[in-house]
């Protein structure tokens, strides 16, 4: 089985995350990591090839420091990795991102068909959670997203997904696209051998030209939305009291004073 797992480099959740004046995620001086939810995607892909044989390829789109994301995936055990980058990609929206990832997946199929594309459920920076759906649409693959359970048998993928009010079990033949939630598995820590292998691995870099994509179709200028304004929210000015026997009553009084018992 040949599996492509899409991963993203995002600002560390614990860091002081911010936006630039033109409304893009500010990466300057902010530590980045592999999006934690993509570790579940990598884990799911590794488990499938460990059971059935094959290879896992990590794919990312992003500037130079995004290589850290695929390095982490290599450490976890993926067989190889590629990164797509191009100056023209700056400011790309979810549609352009999905189009680029789709083109890269197609190119990865040059040396043999891709059976499964796996992604995380969301990136913890933008949290839009729409790229997996758009990628399935671009690749015209069956969409089995938000898998809390995933299995492949006899060329058929089966997932269980929990939506807001319903639970579904879906099935489709390979090739297919799957996104996995953090319920799907417990991601492994890289082993020493993986860390050593990742150090030596070469990560090829593809440009838009390599993928045959038009720079005018991606990037900020082609985006379907534009950020008008990005501003930090003022911190809440809270009151903290210590319970000395009447903490509950004071809590109730606070709610009453603020019209929250109406």
């Amino acid at each position, binding site marked *: 089985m040949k599996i492509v797992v899409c991963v993203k480099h995002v600002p560390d959740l614990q860091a002081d995350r911010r936006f630039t004046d033109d409304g893009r995620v500010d990466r300057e001086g902010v530590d980045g990591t592999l999006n934690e939810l993509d570790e579940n995607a990598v884990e799911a892909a590794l488990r499938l090839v460990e059971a059935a044989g094959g290879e896992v390829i990590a794919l990312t789109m992003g500037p130079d420091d995004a290589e850290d994301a695929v390095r982490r995936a290599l450490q976890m055990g993926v067989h190889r990795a590629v990164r797509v980058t191009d100056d023209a990609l700056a400011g790309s929206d979810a549609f352009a991102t999905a189009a680029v990832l789709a083109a890269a997946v197609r190119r990865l199929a040059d040396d043999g068909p891709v059976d499964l594309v796996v992604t995380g459920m969301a990136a913890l920076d933008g949290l839009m959670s729409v790229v997996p759906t758009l990628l399935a649409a671009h690749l015209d693959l069956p969409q089995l997203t938000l898998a809390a359970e995933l299995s492949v048998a006899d060329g058929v993928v089966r997932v269980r997904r929990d939506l807001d009010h319903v639970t579904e079990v879906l099935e489709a033949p390979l090739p297919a696209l799957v996104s996995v939630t953090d319920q799907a598995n417990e991601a492994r820590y890289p082993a020493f051998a993986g860390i050593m292998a990742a150090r030596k691995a070469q990560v090829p870099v593809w440009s838009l030209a390599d993928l045959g994509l038009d720079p005018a179709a991606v990037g900020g200028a082609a985006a379907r*939305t534009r950020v008008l304004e*990005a501003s930090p929210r003022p911190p809440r000015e*809270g009151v903290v009291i210590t319970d000395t026997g009447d903490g509950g009553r004071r809590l*109730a009084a606070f709610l009453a004073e603020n019209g929250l018992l109406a």
Partner: protein
Amino acid sequence: MTAPTAPVLAVVEHHDGRPRASALELLTAGRALGPVHAVWLGDPPDDAGPLAAHGAAVVHVVPVPTPEAGLPASVAAALAGLAEATGADVVLLASGFGAKEVAARLAHATGAALMVDASAVERDGEGRVVTTQQAFAASWTLRSAAQVGRAVVTLRSNAVRATPAETPGAAEVRVAAPARPADPRVRVVERTARPASDRPDVGEADVVVVGGRGTQGDFSPVEDLADALGGAVGATRDVTDEGWQPHDVMVGQTGVTISPRLYVGAGVSGAVHHRGGMQASGTIVAVNTDPDAPIFEFADFGVVGDLAEVLPQAAAEIRRLRGQA
């Protein structure tokens, strides 16, 4: 400026034949953008009255004859057809995991702009759709404008207060073409509605009391306070991982995103993953034994104390103040 005449489609969610709270919020938000039409997927409503009261001029009933016809790509195709037929330039959905998939497919199919998890939606002077969104655990506010003529927007629950329209809509029921399976390769093996609790739905409630690991599994004080406030019960991931509460009620970045008028966190540390799903709440109250718990850094009111003592006292006092005891 002339008044916009293109209709706005509001895809209203419902349960047992009745609109969910989010449905009336969507209609309220939608009618500020143009003539609002409700889109009702499935069997027709028992009573279109609430939709009319909140301004729905038309109720498009889209039958969903098979489970596969209810998958995101299928629903999106049906909505694209309806948008085309009505000339609607905005489609509103209630934020949620399933709705975002429908929204993405619909925007992909129609070339529309996609704006998810909005807390407000309006039109600017030129009629373009402008949304407000929260980012980075609600520590930032963004305003974005659609750059193309159509927009698909998902609206967070409780972002808009549902209010009846000054003039009710006609809510003329029109049965549209049924949704059809968009992808013959995908089969729904099973679809089961999860049982709803007797309390309000955590994703929709305007008051949510969340219990964390500090409950040590005893949720009775949390439930008691939730009931005194008429609110929903929520949980952190530690709690759902322990099996103390079902996964459905997990609040956070990988669970339900909530923005109730009042959030109460009891025995919740305030980890960043949890914060991402609740920090846009109106008022945040925390009860925690640890004065250094991170949740106090973003709470409007905090009590350093044991939830097993503070919560029951608060519940009793609330009932007394409300004249219920």
